[in-house]
């Protein structure tokens, strides 16, 4: 029963890990950039949702949409102004840029909002559903459901719309995409915007059970990279599978080992997967 409980908790938390990691995978798939600043956009999304709650009284589950829109727009601008010029540069320039962006965003948030940990109050914060002996925390469940819905929306956008198809074409063969009349730079802007917007959305929906501070991203960044590499870098479905794997491994290993060691088990599994299936759990398909 304890194991089942750990599985449920791991699934609910891991689903969110997965969805906030999709953008990392998407941006890598479409423009071959590893965005080390990705987790900082999660932090921005959490702050937007926190302010929307504090000043507009908006539940973070709804504020998440505002987070998506604002961070999407910001992401498009970042792509256009900062990332585009270094796309053709050596990879080390990309690393400097995105790591630099991470530092700038974190410190800007520190300056603007202070180092306090902020949280929200919601009516469902401490309540839970009971199914047999299993406790399903409401904030976990709602965050999981919202995250999966947003992930599914992005998937449908990529697979079912003409613009999404153009984005996948850009990921698979940028030259051929240009020859087919696709504005690849516009696709890059959209991909970056959607990628970071989605992680901001994910950040907002976990606010009911977490606190936000300028450095909250650093807690997530390693988990995100583990999730996308586990699932197969560049794959949307892989990011979700990888995220769930991360959540479940963390929560199940906490049954056996002290909580401080939960990431140790995670990284042992990670190294094993890299050694045995270097392309990730899910075979790469599309963006």
């Amino acid at each position: 029963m304890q194991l089942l409980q750990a599985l449920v908790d791991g699934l609910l938390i891991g689903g969110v890990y997965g969805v906030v990691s999709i953008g990392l995978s998407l941006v890598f798939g479409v423009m071959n950039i590893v965005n080390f600043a990705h987790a900082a956009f999660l932090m921005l999304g959490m702050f937007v949702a926190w302010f929307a709650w504090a000043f507009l009284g908006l539940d973070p589950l709804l504020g998440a949409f505002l987070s998506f829109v604002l961070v999407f727009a910001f992401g498009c601008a970042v792509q256009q102004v900062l990332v585009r010029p270094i796309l053709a540069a050596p990879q080390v320039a990309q690393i400097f840029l995105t790591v630099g962006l991470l530092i700038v965003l974190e410190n800007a948030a520190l300056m603007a909002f202070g180092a306090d940990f902020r949280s929200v109050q919601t009516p469902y914060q401490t309540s839970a559903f009971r199914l047999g002996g299993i406790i399903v925390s409401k904030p976990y469940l709602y965050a999981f459901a919202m995250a999966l819905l947003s992930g599914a929306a992005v998937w449908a956008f990529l697979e079912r719309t003409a613009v999404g198809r153009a984005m996948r074409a850009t990921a698979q063969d940028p030259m051929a995409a240009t020859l087919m009349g696709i504005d690849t730079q516009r696709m890059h802007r959209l991909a970056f915007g959607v990628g970071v917007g989605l992680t901001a959305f994910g950040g907002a929906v976990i606010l009911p059970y977490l606190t936000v501070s300028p450095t909250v991203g650093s807690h997530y960044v390693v988990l995100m990279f583990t999730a996308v590499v586990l699932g197969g870098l560049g794959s949307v479905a892989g990011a979700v599978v990888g995220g769930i794997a991360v959540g479940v491994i963390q929560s199940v290993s906490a049954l056996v080992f002290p909580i401080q060691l939960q990431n140790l088990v995670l990284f042992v599994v990670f190294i094993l997967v890299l050694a045995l299936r270097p392309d990730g759990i899910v075979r790469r398909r599309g963006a």
Partner: protein
Amino acid sequence: MTALLEVARLSARYGRGAPVLHEVALELGQGEFVTVIGANTAGKSTLLRAISGVGPAVEGSIRFDGRELTAVAPHARPKLGIAHVPEGRHVFPEMSVEENLAIGAHARGGAPGGGAAARLEAIFELFPRLRERRRQFGGTLSGGEQQMLAIGRGLMLEPRLLILDEPSLGLAPMIVEELHDRLVEIHRRGVAILLVEQNVSLALSVASRGYVLQSGSIVLEGPAGELLRDDRVREAYLGI
């Protein structure tokens, strides 16, 4: 005949290296079938890439339908009626045949409505294999099928000029013949074709005019039949 494509004094270089194209001049009339032949490093692909805008920076002028192309963004050129089928086919490997073709319809700006459906049907008639394979991923097709897909995808743009770079490269002789029949058919439907092809005798047998490109310069031009009989061409490219 008014020119559909007019290339004048076109020069191109990669970085600071020697020019790959040097003051190239080339003309192609409405609905004309023209081939450019030359050795492997003569600059044929660079010439085609300059026209569609995916090559290196160029100097000189490329006019399409009276409009200066060098001022048009590469992704906007297909909308003017230029379809470039690149060397190596470049189909989208992880998209179905249908999706590959739909990309062309999207670029044309039209929602996949009547026009696109009719074009798709015409392409399936031209290449029945594509209809059979339409749910299969581009990357799983044979070389010949990929070439048909690449050409079909280009035709979805409803081009007035179809640019083909080495369509027969690496294909079995039977497929090559079939492919060239199709090109003749496409040309008969009114599409102008600019063909670069290492199979020189085949290229000169389907095109009406030809240019010989050597080390980045046009050294010879004329009706295809004359080039076929030209001693220099026979010696250098036909091995006779």
